């Protein structure tokens, strides 16, 4: 699954998660194959990025930090954090978020199962009841 800017969408890409407008109305369902008309509509409405199945775009040429750099920045950012319960949990969930978003950028994130409701990926470790 990959998060792609709308201006890089191409016909044939398959939507991985439903795309909704500001009012929560679903414009494109997950599983839908994009046509050029749909892409134009998404651009006109002002949608910036959507999630598609697979990893159709090579993002390696895009400037930006590598995952290792992002994690390293996070660790440095938390340099002064006390080692208490709150900040330990925060570190875990922030790291998981950074990894998840980077995987979606590069296309390494797993596609949601077909023919089922899309769901937000969760963490393997329980953070809180």
């Amino acid at each position, binding site marked *: 699954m990959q998060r792609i800017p709308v201006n890089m969408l191409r016909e044939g890409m398959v939507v991985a998660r439903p795309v909704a407008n500001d009012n929560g109305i679903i414009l494109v369902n997950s599983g839908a194959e994009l046509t050029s008309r749909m892409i134009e509509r998404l651009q006109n409405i002002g949608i910036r990025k959507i999630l598609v199945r697979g990893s159709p775009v090579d993002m390696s040429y895009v400037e930006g930090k590598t995952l290792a750099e992002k994690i390293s920045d996070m660790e440095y950012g938390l340099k002064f954090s006390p080692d208490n319960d709150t900040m330990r949990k925060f570190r875990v969930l922030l790291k*998981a978020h950074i990894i998840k978003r980077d995987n979606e950028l590069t296309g390494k994130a797993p596609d949601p199962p077909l023919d089922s409701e899309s769901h937000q990926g969760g963490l393997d470790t329980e953070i809180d009841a």
Partner: protein
Amino acid sequence: MATIIEKAQLKAQVRRVKSLPTLPGVVNKVVMMVETDDIPISEIGEMISSDQVLASKILKIVNSPFYGFPGRIATINHALVLLGFNVVKGIMLSAGTIDFQSAILSGLWPHSLGVATAAHRIALTIGMEDPEEVSTAGLLHDLGKVVLGTEMRDLCKDVMDVCRQEQISFYEAERKCLDNQTHCDIAGWLAEMWNLPPRLRDPIVFHHHPTLARSAPQATAVIHLADILIRSLQFGSGGDPFIPTLRPEAMETLGLKMGDLVPLLEVINDDLEDLDTSDFT
């Protein structure tokens, strides 16, 4: 490096910001007004609109997604009716007058927009009344740094040098150089001079120490969390690369558990992508 300016001198310098020649005359007039004065909203609107440059800056910001009415507010009067006097005044005093983007601390404008966005989202999530006031508090929360970076550049440069050389937070560097005062104190003095209401003033002054906020603890807790999340997402810059410590008391005030931060980070990240990136040029 030791203290380079004493508190009294610093405060005197900040007082001079209030009557800068660069501040439009309209701003001073509006600052004098308090909502209880019997001046009809339409007159206030006309007065602000008479300064077209100021009005267009305000209109651009009120149409940001973090105010909930993107692209739908066409006049200052409309903004006043939809968002209230405090919000418009707050915007006018920050982005409308002081040029965030000319501050030598680059990255403050996107950071402030980011915190406004995150604050709005948190306020919506916990069902706060008047989420637009919280958005404004987010936009204004680092006003002290902006003033330091625009009106007191030499001082700001010294603080930035200490920050870099000693690899400490901007806040700690401020305390070292500015006689234990920080951008929170600076903004607090301005908020007082400008008669900002508690829901705007408390978050500005206490977002680093949310447990000290007496008048508006909830709004302050929102900004405290929003600042942490936006720094964590590395959106813009608050002057240093550090993520402040999250106070569990703030989470309690907001009725949030740590696990709630997982979906919140997701949706805020999405919200950030909707911000008009041309705002950063």
